């Protein structure tokens, strides 16, 4: 149900763009105004969200430790899975962000032979995630050829590597295929694994369908519906040099592609896609496990009601004295004893 809703939403967006451009001729809207709104929403929204997170302090140092702590000098500590230095944290974060270290640990739990709980390694989700994110990154960087003049060397380099197979003209990029495959996998597992389907919301399917739409229109534009790419670059350069002008003769499918990308940008800061930034800011990963070495400060560390030793001794003084335990304040001498003295 949630999947169908998401698909319908994406198709509606496609329809909107087609109608707007083909029937309505709203080129300036879809070619200029929407992109500007989208980028403002993306950057503004993202900064707003991050500052919102940052406004709340990290009161405690609560890293999840995944290895031996730093303790006695002769015990080898796990520098990166349980870092106690800033450098260790840096490596841990790099492993996490570049290689999805935690997901790489993933296991699959099963009850085998009726009574054995087993935990096998499973790398599918990790592979799917890595394939998806890296091909996305490559595709993103590749697109810089439409956004920069002159085109930086690394964009050309990346294109050459990505099109290394030299299949077809224009060459088919490997990442296009990987991106599609990974997206398909991520979507299928959401639909096929009962538990994952059970937790999946529109928020989970929508970005997948949106990206599938973006990828499909992109591949169509490159290989099947060849449009005037020079015109497209003139449009984008106009946009980013703040002298927007619509170029004539660009295929309507391009406006669909652009509109879906704009939707993604505008949707990004207000969705789970913010894990892009969240992964950097998660206090269970980005803090060193050195709270016994360095005092961590809690800015709202307010005083609380404490049962002080004095109150405690007042409660139990007689019993303590009777048991021969030392007390700070001797009990009031009883009148009878006072008389004796």
């Amino acid at each position, binding site marked *: 149900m949630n999947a169908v809703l998401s698909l319908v939403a994406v198709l509606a967006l496609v329809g909107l763009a087609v109608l707007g451009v083909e029937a309505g001729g709203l080129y300036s809207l879809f070619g200029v105004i929407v992109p500007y709104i989208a980028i403002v929403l993306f950057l503004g929204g993202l900064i707003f969200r991050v500052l919102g997170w940052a406004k*709340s302090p*990290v*009161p*405690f140092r*609560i890293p*999840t*430790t995944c*290895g*031996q*702590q730093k*303790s*006695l000098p002769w*015990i080898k500590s796990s520098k990166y*899975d349980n870092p106690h230095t800033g450098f260790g944290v840096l490596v841990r974060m790099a492993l*996490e962000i570049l290689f999805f270290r*935690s*997901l790489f*640990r993933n296991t699959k*739990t099963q009850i085998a032979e*009726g009574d*054995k*709980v087993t935990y096998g390694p499973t790398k599918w*989700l990790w592979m799917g995630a890595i394939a998806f994110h890296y091909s996305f990154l490559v595709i993103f960087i590749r697109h810089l050829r439409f956004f920069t003049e002159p085109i930086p060397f690394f964009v050309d380099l990346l294109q050459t590597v990505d099109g290394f197979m030299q299949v077809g003209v224009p060459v088919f990029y490997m990442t296009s295929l990987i991106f599609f495959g990974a997206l398909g996998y991520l979507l299928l597992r959401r639909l096929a694994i*009962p538990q994952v*389907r059970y*937790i*999946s*919301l*529109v*928020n*989970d399917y929508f970005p997948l369908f949106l990206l599938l739409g973006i990828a499909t229109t992109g591949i169509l534009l490159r290989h099947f519906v060849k449009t005037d790419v020079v015109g497209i670059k003139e449009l984008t350069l106009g946009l980013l040099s703040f002298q927007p002008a619509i170029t004539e003769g660009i295929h309507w499918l391009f406006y669909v592609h652009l509109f879906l990308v704009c939707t993604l940008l505008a949707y990004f800061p*207000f969705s*789970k896609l913010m*894990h892009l930034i*969240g*992964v950097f800011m*998660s*206090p*269970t*990963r980005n803090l060193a*496990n*050195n*709270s*016994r*070495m360095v*005092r*961590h400060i*809690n800015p709202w*560390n307010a005083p*609380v*009601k*404490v049962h002080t*030793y004095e109150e*405690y001794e007042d409660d*139990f003084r007689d*019993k303590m004295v*009777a*048991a*021969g*335990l030392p007390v700070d304040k001797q009990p009031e001498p009883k009148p009878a004893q006072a008389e004796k003295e």
Partner: protein
Amino acid sequence: MAEAKPDQMDYYQQEDLLKPDYHPPKTGWMDTPVDFRPGSWIYPGKPKHLEYLGLPNPREWAVTDEDWKLPENWKEILLDGIQERLDKYRTFKIFMDVCVRCGACADKCHFFIGGGDPKNMPVLRAELLRSIYRKEYTLAGKLLGKMVGARELTIDVVKEWFYYFYQCTECRRCSVFCPYGIDTAEITMMGRELLGLLGIYVNWSIEPVANCFRTGNHLGIQPHGLKDTLEFFAEDIEEATGVKVKIPINKKGAEVLFVTPSGDFLADPGTYTCMGYMTLFNEIGLDYTWSTYASEGGNFGLFTSADVIKSLNAKIYAEAKRLGVKWILGGECGHMWRVLNQYMDTMNGPADFLEVPKSPITGTVFESAKSTKMVHISEFTADLIKHGKLKLDPSRNDHIRVTYHDSCNPARAMGLLEEPRYILNSVCNNFFEMPENTIREQTFCCGGGAGLGTDENMEMRLRGGLPRGNAVRYVQKKYEVNQLACVCAIDRATLITVCDYWAPGVTVTGITELVVNAMVLEGENDRSINLRLEPVGEQKEGSDDA
């Protein structure tokens, strides 16, 4: 034999518990109500404890009641509470926002593995709270509602929170696998704090909290009672070893203050661990003291709220200062070390009146504890052994085939993995590891941590204990393991049940008990009986019978 009741383990058939239904129900999770069946939840906190602690809304009520007697403005209280916590904790905010529901955490939770209830998947446990957050704090949630996982805050949601936030042992195993490090323990803690605002606590943790506040320990042992207990232990030690140990209590000017969970004063086998500490310290001549005021290392505040953690924990530094000790030594306990490692210095420090811990026996300076000034007994003992300060005869433990259970908190909130293993390898000849996905940072909870270790919660304890119990049974079958060592008082209490049910014949022990049983003491007797006052070697026969 009388019919077994839901709070007894015989009530549950292993065949049933071994067949959890992993298929989610037909109805969506928002439309599936909580099933408050006996054995799966814990009695509410008694009003007298709430009153004593000054907590809100003390009243008599039962979980199965339709009316939980919440304050009129309960909704406002909760929403304000959520806002307050969003402002106080970046973790809470980020964890509400970034989950992508990839599901990697799902089969990492012992309650899900053993029970199959989808709301015990960490992701869905968090969604219980997230759904309200979305409704109140996100535009999409306000507009699109259920589609985007947002829902209205109702009494049923509160009941669901109670059920599932008290079906999480805050063990953090899921956090290890989460690509964003989302820590369900944090979310559960927030959830429990919010429930606390309405006076919803479980008695199993709020009574110890009240006790601890007044007497200094969870069990409510008063100063003279503690003295009696320790003296009683000393008698047993003398019987077992022939050595008469000293019992320094509230001794001003001692070098070290020793703090351990009060479970070790009361229940076997924690008591043997306690006897172990006393014997060890006596043998090495450590100038230490017990405290009656700070007679609790554990901190059920961790299962209640941040303020209560702080309030109970404050006693340790206060007492260290009053007694004028140089540093603090902590006993074997799980969640106690989470507090000591991650919260104590921040909450109640700086401990600038103490010195950087230095072992008076070996001269080792514990640099890694230079700010909290608090050392773990396993670090301390491992250092003693490394320097050859203990005379050990590991063959005295030859009748024991031991495995080691990493307690969740020392493993995943501290990283104490090698020290206990080093000790075990030094004092036992037969040490066997459980399978690798069940130890170290991937260790499984006993199923009864975070205030869930009570009998009325038996079904969940057995279900949650399945992964751990199964791993124990694996080494029991493969290596004839007959004893499970751990460094956690809750483990020593709850793993007995888990082992009796899932791996009968395996007993539970603390590490220090094994250390002292292997130690050659000055002036010792023939050591024919161990600290349990059992003839050495008997245990093996016993387990063979089982």
